[in-house]
C-alpha cells in the first residue's frame, strides 16, 4: 500500500525503490572493484604495506553488498514531506511507553531513526539489546514491577524468531509486551538480497498462537488505530503480548494525506471483565458455609491492591491461602499463608487465576509401571471447586498452556482482582450469624500451625548449613541478611533453590516477588531481572536476582545491556553446574529401564552437565562491564562477598557473584 502512495503522488519524487536501486549499482561496483584489481596485478600487499584482507569463504553478491553498505540518504531529504515513521513516533509517544529494548535491524531503520532523532530518544528511550529474546525478557520483567508495558522492535523474520520464546513466556505469564516486527512486503520494490531474506508474507503468523492480537497496517492512519488498539488489547486483563507487522516502506515514505487529516486515537483503558453476579453469590454461599475453605492463588494480584483484597477475603473467612507464586499475591508473613497440603482436607476450594487447576487438586506421579506416570486425587470426594480465571476468555488451540481439563462447580471466566470486591461483599452477606465462633476457632488453629511451620522451615534451612558447595538455604539467607534493611526487590529466582526465599523472606510488597517465566522457557531469568531492575532503578529500589547458570548462557549479552544503560542489579548465581531438571529426568529414565546412567566424565548424565570446563561467569560478567567475583565455594566467604557486592550495586553498578551451590 505504501508503494501505491509513492507512485501516485504528484510530488517530485526521489522514490525509495529507485534510490536503492541506484545504491545497489554503485555499491556493487565499489565492493567488487578492489578485489578485481588485486587479482589482475597479482599484488600481495596493499599500497600502504599492509597485507591484503583475507577473502571470506563466500563473496557477497552485489545485491547483498549494496544492501549492507548502501547509505539511505533519502531519510534526510525532508522536502518530500514528513516521514511516515515520524508520525508513528507521535502515536507511540501518546502512550507513555518509557523504554524500547531492541536489537537494531534494517527493517525498522526508519522507525528507529525517527525515535532517536525526531523523538529525541525519550518515551521511549532505545535500549540496545544483543538478542531479541533478551529484549522481550526485559519488557517482561519491567512490566511485573511497574504494570506498564514496553515496546520492542525486531526484524520480522530472523529477529522475531529469536524473540519468539520470550513472547511465549509472556503469553503464558499473562504479561503485555508490544512487539513491532519490521517487514518489507513489496516484492517488486524491496531491496534484493538480505532485506528479501528478511521479508515474509505474514510475519505475525509465527507468534499468532501466543499473542492476543496482531495486525499489519497499510497506511499511517491504519498504524495509529492499530497501535492504540494493540496497546489497549494488551492492557485489558487478561494481559498478553501483541504483535504488529510494520512495512518498511510505510515507515520510510513521506506521508501523503490525500486530503485526509491524520489523527491519533485517544487511549481509554478498558475495564477488566468481572464475574457474573449470580455466580459470585453462589461462590460466596459455598465459601461462607464451608468448614474448611481454602483459597489458592497464582496470578490473582495484578496490582498492589490485589494483595489487600486477598488479605481481606482470607481474614473474613479465616481461610488459609496457598500462593502458587505466579505473582506476589499474599504476604508471606501472614498466618493464613499456608503450604499446598492444606487443600487435602478442604471442603471448598476457590482458585483465583490458576494456570493449572487440575494440578492443584490432583497429583501426577512420574513413576508408574513401565515408566508411565499415573494420577491421584489430592482432595476428598465431594469437595466443591470455584474458579475465577480470566484466561478462560482467551484460550487458544495450538499451544497447550490451558493444561488438563478440570471440572469445577462454579466457573467464572473473569478477572479475579476485579471480581474480589463483589465477592467480599457477597461473602459478608452470606456469613450466617452463628458462624463467627467457628471462624475464630479455625483461624486460631491455622495461626498455631503457621507458627510451627515457621520453626520447621528454619530447622530445615539449618541442614547442610556449612556444606560446600553452598546450600541453597544458606545462599538465600546470606543474600537476605545483606539486603534486609534496603527497599529490596527479588527480581528473578530462576533455577530452583527449593523455594527458600518464599519460605523464609518476609515478602509483603508487590515487588518483593515477581513470579516466574510463565512458559518455563529457560533464558528468562537474566533479561527479566535486568528489565525489572531497570524499573526498580527508576523507583529507587534495590534489585537482587538469584541467577542460574544454564539460564544465563542462553543470551549473556544482556549483561552488557545492563552495564551500558547503568542498570544496577545484584545477581547472585545459583551455579549448580548443570541443567539440573534434565539431570534428574535422565536419571529417572535410566532407573525405570534398569540401567546405570552413563555420566561420561561428568557428575551427571551425558548432555546435562555444565562443567569440564567450568564456566567462569564472574569473568564473563566482568568482560561486559560488571563488578564480579567468584567462584565462591566456601560458605564462610559468601556473606562478606555479598556485602561487598551490595555496596557496588548501591553505587549504581551491576554486580555478579559466581557461587557454587548444591543442586537444589
Amino acid at each position, binding site marked *: 500500500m505504501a508503494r501505491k502512495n509513492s507512485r501516485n503522488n504528484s510530488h517530485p519524487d526521489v522514490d525509495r525503490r529507485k534510490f536503492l536501486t541506484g545504491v545497489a549499482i554503485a555499491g556493487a561496483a565499489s565492493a567488487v572493484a578492489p578485489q578485481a584489481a588485486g587479482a589482475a596485478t597479482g599484488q600481495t600487499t596493499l599500497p600502504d604495506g599492509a597485507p591484503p584482507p583475507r577473502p571470506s569463504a563466500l563473496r557477497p553478491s552485489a545485491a547483498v553488498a549494496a544492501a549492507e553498505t548502501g547509505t539511505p540518504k533519502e531519510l534526510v531529504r525532508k522536502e518530500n514531506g514528513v516521514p511516515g515513521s515520524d508520525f508513528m513516533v507521535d502515536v507511540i509517544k501518546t502512550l507513555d511507553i518509557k523504554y524500547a529494548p531492541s536489537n537494531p535491524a534494517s527493517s525498522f531503520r526508519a522507525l528507529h531513526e525517527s525515535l532517536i532523532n525526531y523523538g529525541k530518544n525519550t518515551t521511549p528511550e532505545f535500549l540496545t539489546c544483543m538478542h531479541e529474546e533478551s529484549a522481550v525478557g526485559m519488557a517482561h520483567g519491567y512490566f511485573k514491577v511497574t504494570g506498564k508495558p514496553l515496546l520492542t522492535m525486531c526484524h520480522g523474520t530472523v529477529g522475531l524468531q529469536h524473540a519468539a520464546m520470550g513472547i511465549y513466556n509472556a503469553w503464558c505469564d499473562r504479561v503485555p509486551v508490544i512487539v513491532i516486527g519490521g517487514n518489507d512486503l513489496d516484492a517488486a520494490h524491496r531491496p534484493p538480497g538480505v532485506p528479501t531474506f528478511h521479508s515474509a508474507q505474514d510475519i505475525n503468523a509465527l507468534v499468532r498462537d501466543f499473542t492476543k492480537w496482531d495486525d499489519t497496517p497499510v497506511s499511517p492512519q491504519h498504524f495509529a488505530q492499530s497501535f492504540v488498539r494493540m496497546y489497549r488489547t494488551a492492557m485489558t486483563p487478561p494481559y498478553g503480548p501483541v504483535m504488529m507487522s510494520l512495512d518498511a516502506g510505510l515507515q520510510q515514505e513521506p506521508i501523503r494525506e490525500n486530503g485526509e487529516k491524520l489523527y491519533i486515537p485517544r487511549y481509554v483503558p478498558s475495564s477488566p471483565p468481572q464475574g457474573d453476579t449470580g455466580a459470585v453469590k453462589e461462590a460466596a454461599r459455598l465459601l461462607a458455609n464451608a468448614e474448611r475453605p481454602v483459597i489458592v492463588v497464582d496470578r490473582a494480584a495484578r496490582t498492589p491492591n490485589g494483595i489487600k483484597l486477598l488479605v481481606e477475603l482470607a481474614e473474613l473467612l479465616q481461610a488459609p491461602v496457598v500462593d502458587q507464586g505466579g505473582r506476589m499475591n499474599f504476604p508471606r508473613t501472614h498466618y493464613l499463608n499456608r503450604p499446598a497440603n492444606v487443600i487435602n482436607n478442604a471442603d471448598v476450594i476457590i482458585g483465583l487465576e490458576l494456570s493449572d487447576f487440575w494440578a492443584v487438586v490432583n497429583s501426577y506421579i512420574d513413576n508408574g509401571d513401565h515408566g508411565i506416570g499415573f494420577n491421584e486425587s489430592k482432595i476428598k470426594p465431594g469437595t466443591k471447586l470455584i474458579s475465577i480465571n480470566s484466561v478462560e476468555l482467551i484460550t487458544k488451540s495450538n499451544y497447550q498452556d490451558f493444561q488438563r481439563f478440570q471440572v469445577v462447580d462454579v466457573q467464572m471466566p473473569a478477572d479475579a482482582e476485579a471480581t474480589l470486591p463483589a465477592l467480599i461483599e457477597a461473602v459478608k452477606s452470606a456469613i450466617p450469624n452463628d458462624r463467627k465462633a467457628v471462624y475464630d476457632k479455625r483461624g486460631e488453629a491455622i495461626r498455631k500451625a503457621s507458627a510451627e511451620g515457621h520453626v520447621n522451615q528454619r530447622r530445615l534451612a*539449618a541442614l547442610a548449613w556449612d556444606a560446600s558447595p553452598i546450600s541453597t538455604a544458606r545462599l538465600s539467607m546470606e543474600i537476605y*541478611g545483606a539486603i*534486609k534493611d534496603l527497599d529490596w526487590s527479588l527480581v528473578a529466582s530462576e533455577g530452583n533453590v527449593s523455594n527458600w526465599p518464599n519460605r523464609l523472606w518476609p515478602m509483603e510488597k508487590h515487588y518483593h516477588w515477581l513470579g516466574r517465566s510463565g512458559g518455563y522457557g529457560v533464558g528468562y531469568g537474566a533479561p527479566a531481572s535486568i528489565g525489572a531492575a531497570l524499573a526498580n532503578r527508576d523507583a529507587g529500589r534495590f534489585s537482587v536476582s538469584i541467577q542460574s547458570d544454564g539460564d544465563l548462557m542462553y543470551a549473556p549479552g544482556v549483561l552488557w545491556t545492563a552495564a551500558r544503560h547503568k542498570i544496577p542489579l545484584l545477581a547472585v548465581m545459583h551455579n549448580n553446574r548443570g541443567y539440573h531438571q534434565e539431570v534428574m529426568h535422565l536419571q529417572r529414565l535410566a532407573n525405570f529401564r534398569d540401567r546405570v546412567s552413563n555420566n561420561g566424565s561428568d557428575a551427571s548424565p551425558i548432555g546435562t552437565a555444565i562443567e569440564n570446563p567450568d564456566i567462569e561467569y564472574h569473568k564473563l560478567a566482568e568482560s561486559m562491564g560488571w563488578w564480579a567475583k567468584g567462584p565462591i565455594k566456601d560458605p564462610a566467604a559468601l556473606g562478606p562477598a555479598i556485602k561487598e557486592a551490595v555496596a557496588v550495586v548501591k553505587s549504581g553498578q551491576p554486580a555478579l557473584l559466581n557461587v557454587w551451590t548444591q*543442586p537444589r
Partner: protein
Amino acid sequence: MRMVRVFVAAALVAGFGLVTLSGAASAASAEKGAIAFKKYGCWQCHGFLGQGSVATSAGKVLAPDTLPYEAFSAFVRGTNRTMPPYREAVLPESDLADIHAYLSSIPKGPDYKTIPLLNN
C-alpha cells in the same frame, strides 16, 4: 504391578532377604558410600549431604536421622512414589549398604537457633 513391587519389597524386609541385607550393611564403608552416593545420582534430588529439598525430594531428609537400613533398602528398591526405584541390577546391595553408611556418618549440623541469619 505396583502392588507386586511393594509386596516384593515388604517380603525382602520381612523374610530371608533381611539376613542378607543386614550382612551387607554391617560390612559397609561410609567412604565408599560417599562415592556411590554421587555415582548413582542420589545427590541430584537429595543434595550432597542428604539434606533434601521440597522441590525434588518432597522435603524428605536423609541425614541426619537416617532410616534403619531395612526400611531404607525397602524404600529404595520398591518405591512407587516420586522417587524412581533402584533395583539391584543397577545398584548392587553392597553399594546401597555403603550409601547407607555414608548417610549415617553425616554429623548433625548446627541448631537453627544458633545461626543468626535464621533468627532475624
